[in-house]
């Protein structure tokens, strides 16, 4: 006699409450089937809520006999995992990759693995802000930019605003933080999903997600600024634009007339096209920011300060290579008149091979008896320009010293009274 198959039964039989099932096995199968079919993708971030509705795991009862021979490697993988946009928070406790990352960064045991797992889920993978890293990344970005700007302002009080923006981006922008995340050994999953190992960074190359990151206002003339290259003054950049003085625009990798930016042939390399590389860079940077946010959330202000110092502020950036002068001699003359120095004079210090193919002139810029700068070049004019640029850089890169106090040092307990920091009157020629 053929056995009855539960899944072939009609709805009538399933709905009818049979007081006495034919065999106990059938009843058990029926119960487990109903459980499976009514399972919704309910997820909870807190451990308390998770106890109320536990997800159904594939145990021996509801696994087909053929699957028992090859049991799933990850025993914590729930049956409905692939329908979820990101892995369940409780799976974080069973991921060796995640535990290794936690130990590699020497994070405090106060930071739970679940939070670290959440920091690895980008907004493009899971749009739900309770499960992605956008909130943590926002906190992290605010802290990184605060400490970076404070560091630059205290160490180089005369930096022009544009150079300060470039320096901020060089240290705390997406490309730099992407490198930090890479140096932590964060690996990306091929595609996001609930079945992915929680120790992998999850982001989608198709959709970009809309995490709000950073301050700033969207300008009404944003299209004109980008397409027609309208001028933007520094003062308006301070007020309206983001922390790096860039236009705030929600369209990422998408042109402003709505259509998606087509990658040109030049952009496509073996590493994908420029848009996809930028998406990946942004996801890695946001993940790094989210880890900083997690450190702040669980360990507090002092811990996050030392974490940022160790991972971001310790990186090297050569500020003297960020300057691009247009009229260095004129600017130096204006500086001297503003500061009431004697007007600058260029003097030839030494030369060789004036009539040869490769002459070298060394020119010094003097204000009275003080030498402001020196430069060498293949022509007298070039040497003079270089000398004035060096003199201007020496002015702008003035530093009161390495051990200058930061405003955030005042937040510590028993901090000494604050001594006013050096504040410069501003750039020589401002836009």
């Amino acid at each position, binding site marked *: 006699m053929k056995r009855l198959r539960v899944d072939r039964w009609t709805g009538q039989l399933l709905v009818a409450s049979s007081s006495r099932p034919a065999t106990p096995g059938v009843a058990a199968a029926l119960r487990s089937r109903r459980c499976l079919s009514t399972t919704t993708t309910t997820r909870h971030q807190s451990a308390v809520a998770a106890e109320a509705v536990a997800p159904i795991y594939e145990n021996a009862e509801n696994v087909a006999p053929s699957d028992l021979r090859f049991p799933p490697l990850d025993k914590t993988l729930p049956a409905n995992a692939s329908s979820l946009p990101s892995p369940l928070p409780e799976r974080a406790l069973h991921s060796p990759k995640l535990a290794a990352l936690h*130990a590699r960064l020497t994070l405090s045991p106060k930071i739970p693995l679940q939070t670290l797992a959440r920091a690895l889920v980008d907004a493009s993978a899971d749009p739900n802000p309770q499960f992605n890293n956008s909130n943590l990344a926002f906190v992290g970005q605010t802290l990184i930019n605060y400490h970076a700007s404070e560091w630059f302002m205290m160490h180089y009080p005369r930096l*022009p605003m544009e*150079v300060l923006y470039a320096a901020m981006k060089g240290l705390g922008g997406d490309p730099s933080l992407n490198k930090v995340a*890479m*140096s932590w050994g964060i690996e990306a999953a091929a595609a996001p999903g609930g079945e992915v190992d929680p120790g992998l960074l999850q982001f989608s190359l198709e959709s970009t997600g809309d995490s709000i990151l950073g301050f700033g206002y969207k300008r009404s003339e944003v299209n004109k600024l980008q397409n027609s290259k309208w001028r933007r003054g520094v003062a308006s950049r301070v007020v309206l634009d983001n922390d790096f003085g860039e236009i705030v625009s929600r369209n990422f990798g998408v042109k402003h007339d709505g259509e998606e930016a087509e990658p040109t042939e030049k952009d496509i390399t073996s590493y994908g096209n420029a848009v996809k590389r930028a998406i990946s860079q942004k996801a890695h940077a946001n993940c790094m920011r989210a880890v900083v946010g997690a450190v702040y959330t669980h360990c507090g202000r002092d811990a996050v300060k030392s974490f940022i110092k160790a991972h971001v502020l310790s990186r*090297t950036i050569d500020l003297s290579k960020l300057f691009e002068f247009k009229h260095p001699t004129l600017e130096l003359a204006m500086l001297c008149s503003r500061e009431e120095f004697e007007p600058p004079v260029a003097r030839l210090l030494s030369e060789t091979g004036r009539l040869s193919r490769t002459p070298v002139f060394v020119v010094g810029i003097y204000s009275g008896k003080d030498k402001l700068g020196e430069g060498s070049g293949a022509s007298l004019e070039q040497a003079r320009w270089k000398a004035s640029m060096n003199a201007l850089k020496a002015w702008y890169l003035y530093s009161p010293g390495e051990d200058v106090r930061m405003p955030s040092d005042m937040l510590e307990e028993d901090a000494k009274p604050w001594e006013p920091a050096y504040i410069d009157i501003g750039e020589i020629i401002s836009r």
Partner: protein
Amino acid sequence: MAIKALQTISTGRNGVGAFILQCKRIDIHFCDWAGSSKGMNGFIKSLLPKFAAAHPQIEFVVSPRPSKHPVAIGHYINGREKAICVRNMEPYQILKKLELLRDASGEKLKVTKPVQSINESVRGIWSPYHGNGMKV
């Protein structure tokens, strides 16, 4: 008219600020049957639990590879990997090899070159155009 800014990316050096161990994963392959895996099987039973517990920053993956020599493969942050065949080795010899994998940076082995630094020279570069010069 005014100064414009050029964009650069900061460079980090491992150990300045924070140190990150470069070995992120070690795969360990063994065979239950073959004689060349005898030492490896002993290592997995006796020494590996302690070694793995002492290095939480490394992910250890132990998997059988029937009818093959035992191998330990280190995976590094720079994306490279380093594989060492540990056939016929004693457990303590294998431990030495794992320590080698742990301490490696993952870079290709190179002939020793002078230290390259991104710091500016303290003394500066010698210039023929400065100073009093020398009469020949």
